[in-house]
Structure formats: C-alpha cells, structure tokens
C-alpha cells in the first residue's frame, strides 16, 4: 500500500512540530524566536468519527470490488468500520456477523464523486447560499472550499440515497484560473464541516483553464480576457509562489501557502479543462513550473490525447455524454470514456451536478454502452471502477476507500440489481460500516435541518 502525498504531509509536519518543540529548549533559543511560526497544515482538522455499525456479512450477491474484480455469489464482511473479508461462497462467516441475504443483488464500493459543488452551491440555489466562486480575482489560491460548505445542503442526502455516494470532493467553481482549495468529505450528516472531513485526505487545488476565467474577467475588462492571458496569469502566479517557497515565510501569504503545497507535491491539482490542445498546454506549463496535474476535469476532448494523458499519468474525469452547451464542449462525444479506457488512461466519471451525482453509476453504464457500439467492450467490473476506485485514486485516498479490500473503510453499497442497469437502485448504503441509508426503512433516510417541518420532509425523494 503506497502512502498518499497527503499522508506524507501529515507525517512530515508532525516530525517538524516535534523538532521545533525540542529546539525551543536549546541554547540557540534566541535565534529560534525570530523564526516565523510554523504553518499549520491542518488548522481546521477533521472531527469525523465513524458512526457505530454492526458486524455485517453480505451474502450471495454479485460483488464488484471496484478494481476490476467480480465475484459471483460473493461474501463481503465488515466489522468495526473496516472491510475484513471479500470472497466467494466458500468463505466462512465468523460468529457474531449479521447476515444479509443479498442473492440476486449487487455489491459495490461506495460511490465517489471527484467533482461536486454540494454545500458550496447548495439547494436552495439562492444568492444567500451561493458560495462556490470567489470571483474577485483570477487567482484565489487562498480560499478554501470547506469554509463555504453548508453541511445542511439536502443534496448530500440525495447523493447518498439515490446515488450511493459515500465520499465526494467539493471544489470551488471554475470562475477563476486558480479557484482555491477543495475539500474531501465523507457523505455523512453533520452539523459541522469538520464532522464530514475525510480524515487525512490530501488537499486539492482547483484550477480552471479555457472559457470560464477569460469570460468572467474579460467581462470585467481585466486580465485574463484571452487564453493567452490565462496562461500568463497562471505562470506568474507559479513564479511568485516559487519565490515565496524559497523565502523565509516571514510574511504569511495564504494563497502562496497553497501553491507551495502543490509545488511540494502535497496538494493535488484538479484542473477544469475541456480541450485537448489546452490540456497539452497545461501539461507543459506544469512541467515548466514544477508541479503535477492529478486529473483534468470535464475533459470532453480527452479522447483526442488519451495517450498523452496516459504517458503523463493524468486521470481524465469526464461526463458520459454532455456536449455542445459551450464552445469548448462542442467536440464532446459519448465514446470519450471508453476510448480513454481503451488507451489505458485512468477514467473517472464525475458529476459537477447536484442531480448527476445521484446517477454516476448510470452515466458510467451509458459510457460503457457507447464504447461497446464502436467495438470497445469494457467489462462491468471495470466500469464500476470509474465511479469508485479511480475517483479515490485521483483524490489521493485510494489506499483507504474506493474498493472492497480487507483493511479499507467499509464504504459499501448494496444495489437491488445491477448498478449498470437503469432499473436498479441503492438498497442500503454503509459509510465506515455504519448503515446510513436503507430504502426499506423510512427512518434510515437523512433529513437535513433545512427540510424539517417543510413540505416533503422525510419523503422518499
């Protein structure tokens, strides 16, 4: 199991913190006093704790493990929030496990959306709650999405109940070239954002290329108003960040803290970018400036450069078949995901949509079918990885969730049929082994504070 950059970051800062405490007692204390305070890597720490669950055995289902594996008549065991066994019918079920007959049903890892604006653009979509785009400067690496997330957004509950979503990355919007930090959340009801934060998940930086930033700032009569303006502003920001990184940090700069984190490989770049030629430009920029793009989001033209993305180890997070709503989406084709997978490129199906997040499985199924019709036959089990493990990997949490493997978080969905069929729905959803949605039990259905006492409270939705 490889450590994610995020884990490395926590570990190294822990060591740094210890060293500073020790040195305070040293003879050179005077000199130490002049050193700037260490930058807290995690000043808004996760307070998430798994909810209690019972030791559970799902028996008899078709199991997709999220990494391309498929087991017929399988057994999935979890206990104390962790997966403890995944196997065939011959697997022994230890004493004390509640057996759920899942014959004829399907089990997958919890669904993961790498691109969501739930909480920052919540429902109801009124101006007072619209907190997703700090469109006051083309670069705002200083803002953090977690400071905008409204945990009461009813969208979280719909994503859980209809989409089986257990983990999601909340990104700032795409109005800015550098939009700010994203945050990874477990999809659990919580009063605070900290109570949803995925423990130890690395931060990500949302970047955007193309039409949006140039439209927003061009419309204000300021730079950037063109694609070349986009690149010039980006490049200067990275140059300034590197200068800061090499300095003594005497003057804290929140934005440059974030960019420094990217340059050190501790913060992942999630880059909104549609066009093939533009993604290639961004790849060159990342090499010029010494950082790495983890995934291109909305990559509707990724199929044209599937090889380039593969060679640079960059995932393409895509919709199944959105197209034509803006100029840079004009060459969108429904075979995008299949062509990428066929080329060996990492594919993630994402939503960017409070409705779409409820049907990532269906979007993946459509993309699979469109591939099949041009002779690219991708097995169901691999397609499931597009909305589970591949997303987790691109979010830097693939070592903890996204697949059904012993030791991982028990984020599990029991579907009442094949999740790649339109006729199937999540029947039960567990997050860290806790049953947080059960279609058969009206009381296992979260109702946000906002919905209490209002029309539709507690409805099946």
């Amino acid at each position, binding site marked *: 199991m490889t450590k994610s950059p995020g884990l490395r970051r926590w570990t190294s800062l822990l060591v740094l913190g210890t060293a500073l405490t020790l040195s305070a007692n040293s003879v050179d204390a005077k000199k130490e006093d002049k050193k700037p305070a260490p930058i807290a890597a995690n000043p808004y720490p996760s307070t998430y704790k798994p909810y209690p669950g019972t030791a559970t055995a799902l028996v008899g289902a078709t199991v997709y493990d999220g990494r391309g594996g498929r087991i017929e008549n399988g057994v999935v065991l979890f206990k104390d929030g962790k997966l403890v066994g995944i196997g065939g019918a011959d697997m022994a079920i230890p004493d004390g496990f509640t057996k759920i007959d899942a014959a004829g049903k399907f089990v997958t890892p919890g669904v993961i959306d790498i691109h969501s604006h739930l909480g920052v653009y919540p*429902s*109801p*979509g*009124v101006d007072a709650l619209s907190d997703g785009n700090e469109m006051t400067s083309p670069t705002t690496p200083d803002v953090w999405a977690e400071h905008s997330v409204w945990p009461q957004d*009813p*969208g979280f509950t*719909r994503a859980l109940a*209809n989409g089986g979503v257990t983990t999601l990355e909340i990104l700032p919007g795409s109005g800015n070239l550098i939009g700010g930090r994203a945050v990874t959340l477990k999809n659990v009801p919580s009063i605070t954002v900290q109570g949803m934060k995925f423990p130890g998940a690395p931060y990500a930086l949302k970047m955007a290329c193309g*039409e949006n930033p140039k439209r927003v700032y061009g419309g204000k009569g300021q730079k950037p108003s063109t694609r070349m303006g986009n690149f010039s502003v980006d490049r200067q920001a990275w140059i300034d960040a590197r200068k800061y990184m090499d300095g003594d940090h005497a003057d804290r700069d929140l934005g440059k803290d974030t960019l420094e984190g990217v340059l050190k490989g501790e913060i992942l770049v999630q880059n909104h970018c549609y066009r093939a030629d533009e993604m290639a430009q961004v790849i060159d920029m990342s090499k010029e400036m010494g950082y790495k793009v983890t995934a291109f989001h909305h990559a509707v033209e990724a*199929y*044209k450069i*599937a*090889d380039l993305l593969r060679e640079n180890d960059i995932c393409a997070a895509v919709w199944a*078949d*959105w*197209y*034509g*709503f*803006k*100029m840079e*989406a*004009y*060459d*969108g*084709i*429904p*075979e995008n995901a299949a*062509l990428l997978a066929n*080329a060996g490129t990492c594919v993630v199906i994402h939503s960017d949509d*409070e*409705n779409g997040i*409820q*049907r990532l499985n*269906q979007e993946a*199924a*459509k993309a*699979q*079918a*469109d591939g*099949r*019709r*041009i002779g690219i036959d991708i097995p169901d089990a691999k397609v499931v990885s597009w909305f589970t493990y591949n997303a987790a990997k691109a979010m830097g949490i693939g070592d903890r969730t996204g697949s059904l493997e012993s030791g991982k978080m028990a984020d599990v969905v029991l579907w*009442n049929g094949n999740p*790649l*069929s*339109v*006729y*199937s*729905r999540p029947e039960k959803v567990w997050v860290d082994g806790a049953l947080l949605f059960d*279609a*058969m039990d*009206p009381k296992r259905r979260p109702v946000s504070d*906002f*919905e209490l006492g*209002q*029309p*539709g409270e507690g*409805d*099946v*939705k």
Partner: protein
Amino acid sequence: MSRRAIIAAALAAAAFSPAAFAQDFAITNATVATGDGSAPIEHGTVVVRGGKVVAAGAGVAVPAGVQSIDGTGKWVTPGLFAAVTDLGLLDVEGVKDSNDSEADESPFNAALDVSPAVNPDSEHIAVSREGGVTRATVSPYNGHSIFAGQGAVIDLGADPDAVTKARAFQFVQLGEQGARLAGGSRVAAHVALRNALREAREVAASPNAARSPDALLTRADAAALAQVIDGRQPLYVGVERASDIRSVLALKSEFPKLDLVLVGATEGWLVAGDIAAAKVPVITMPLRDLPSAFEALAATQSNVGRMKKAGVKVAIGMFNTSNQPRYAPQEAGNLVALGKLPGAAGLTWGEAFAAITSVPAEISGLGGKNGGVRAGVLAPGAVGDVVIWDGDPLELSSAPLDVFIDGVKQPLENHQSRLRQRYRSLDRTYLPKAYDW
C-alpha cells in the same frame, strides 16, 4: 449548373416532400412497444406504408410486396417525442450569435414565433435523431417578459421541412422567475398576465381599432394572445409551487376557454387532485428531487407517479442542451425503477414509455384528434415514425439501430459520430487527423 449542383438541387427539392422517399416496410418478430401505455408485445410486427403505420402488434401479416426486416432480438417502437425543447434554436448555448432561444432585447414577446428560426441542420437535432427522437416541441425561453412567445411542433427528419405545426402554443412563465420578469413579485406577474389577456381580448374584438392609451402590449403581442384567449392556441404555463399551480388553475374562472398545460409542476403531486379535476396536462422533469428553490421544496422523483395515480396526464419533457432529449429513455427508466421502492411512486414500463411518446404527442396536439396528425404511437394511421432498437429502449445499454420518420429511413451520422470515427484510433504515423475523413 454543375453536375454537383444539379444533384444538390434535386435532393433539396425531393427532400421537401419526405413522402417521396417513404418506403413501405415491415419489421417482423420484434418486441413491439406501441407507446400507448400498454406492455411490450413479444414477436410483434409493424407495417408502414406510404409514410404511415398501417398495423402494429402480434399476429399482423406482412402484405405482399412489402419489404420485410427481421426484427429478431430487437425492439421496435414509435419515435420518441421530446416535449418543450430548444432543438434547432441554437448551435452552442453559450455562443450568443448561434443562439435564437431567447430575445431579451426585442420589443416583442408573445408575438415571437420560433418557427422561422428552427434550423433542421442543427447538430442538436442530428444528435437527438441518433438517439431515437423523431418529433419535438420547440419553445422559446423568456427574454424580458413573462411571455416567451410561440413554440412549434417539429419533426427531426434530415430534410428542410422541419416544422409540423407553427405557433403550436404560447409559453408564459409564472412562479419565481415570472415574478422577477414581471417586476419583482408574483403579484405583478398575475396582473401582467391578466392585463395581457384582456388587451388580447380587446384587440381580437376590434383588430383595427385604436389602442387605449394605457395599452402595455404591442399590437402584435396582443394579437398573438388572442388565440390563447379563445383556446385555439394552448397556453403553456411554467410553474412549480403547489400554490402557484392552484392560482394557474383558477385563471379559468376569468378566462374559461384557456387551454392550459403546466410545465414544470415540481410540486404537482401536492395538488394532483386539483390538476386532474381541471383536466390540465403536465410536462415535467421527472428526476428533480431537490429543493432547488423555495418554490420547489417538495420536489420528489415520485412526482410523476403520484400525479399519474391521481389521474393527471403527465409527460416527461423540458429538454435543452444540458438535459438532452436523448436522455428521455433514461429518465423514463428511472421511474420504472422507482416502482420497486417502498413509499415511492413510479410508473409501469408501458406508462413510462408512453410518457416519452404518446402522452407528450397528445399534449402537443399530435394525438390525431379531428383527423389531425397522430404521432408517438404505433397505431393504424399514425405517422411512420419508427425506431428499431438493439434492446429495451429504456435501458442504459440500448440505442437505436434504425430511425424512420414519416416512413423515411434517416441518416444517423453527425458531428459526434464523425469525431468518433476519426479518433477511434490514435495512430499519428501517417498524416494529420485532418486528412482522415
């Protein structure tokens, strides 16, 4: 005239009369879904002659001399009917120059008529056709007025003759958006609506009389609404909240001939009995389940199922570039899935399929009443809009193999299909992709 130009001119002329290309054909031994709400029929046959359906179902004989297509393992259905779309009105939504879906700087509103603007060569039409959509209603969006203008019924055939019925309905937006357009509140929207209808009545009564000095509508707008007043043109009303729906239904007490259609009706299930009693049909997006606005607090995917159960005629619709018409089967399929959940209300397969075929066709005036055009169904006399699918049309894995409109086999190529052919291989060793066509 060059040879090429002669051919092009001949094709264009011929294309104006689709019936000239219509073939007589029969599809045999297929699973046939007629679109009328009934369950699919195994081993069925569909016969099309002269651009019309002549028979569909089990035990149908293929007339002598009619070409027979083996439908074994396939499904045959009427073409999908997409209600309330922007098909043909734009190339790229975000490219203003290409977008004729709204006219927010025009002095006119209700008089606006989309029919001369519809472009049958639009990629959105071609892509929707590939998805099995054969007919649609095209609606303008609101510019600066609660009246968006007059929509059309079109077919999606690859010919220049797209408009089946021009000025097929008027669209008025109420609710939160209508309130903003009218001056800031629902109160203003209702005054604006009533005033407009009264001005329409005056202009209709004396078309050439001088307008009263406090007239707010242009003559053209008032004249357009004259057809709405007397029920000759349906009035589509965009509305979401239960109380707003009640207010719309109440309009009939002052204007009894209004032929109302509710569009949106997110909270329709809360007033389903009232809607059913008023015999007002609904066109809605079925999967909306979020309180996206205060006027949609009670949103649920069970909206369609509950309204249907109460006796409301409900169609799936409201398709635009983001919610493409070719998603219609997926939306309908989800309503079938909903039927399995305790507490939820879904639709049977037949009902769900009807919600994207015959029901929207009927609401749009293509129900064949009084000898008119009948679409959205495989029944004798209906238009020969037929789709052959490689599987259950509501299932995510299925797609059309062949699409016929008025009995004419349609080309299914488009910008997207050409791109997928070009990029199926990433081989860059010979010449640039630009030479690969």
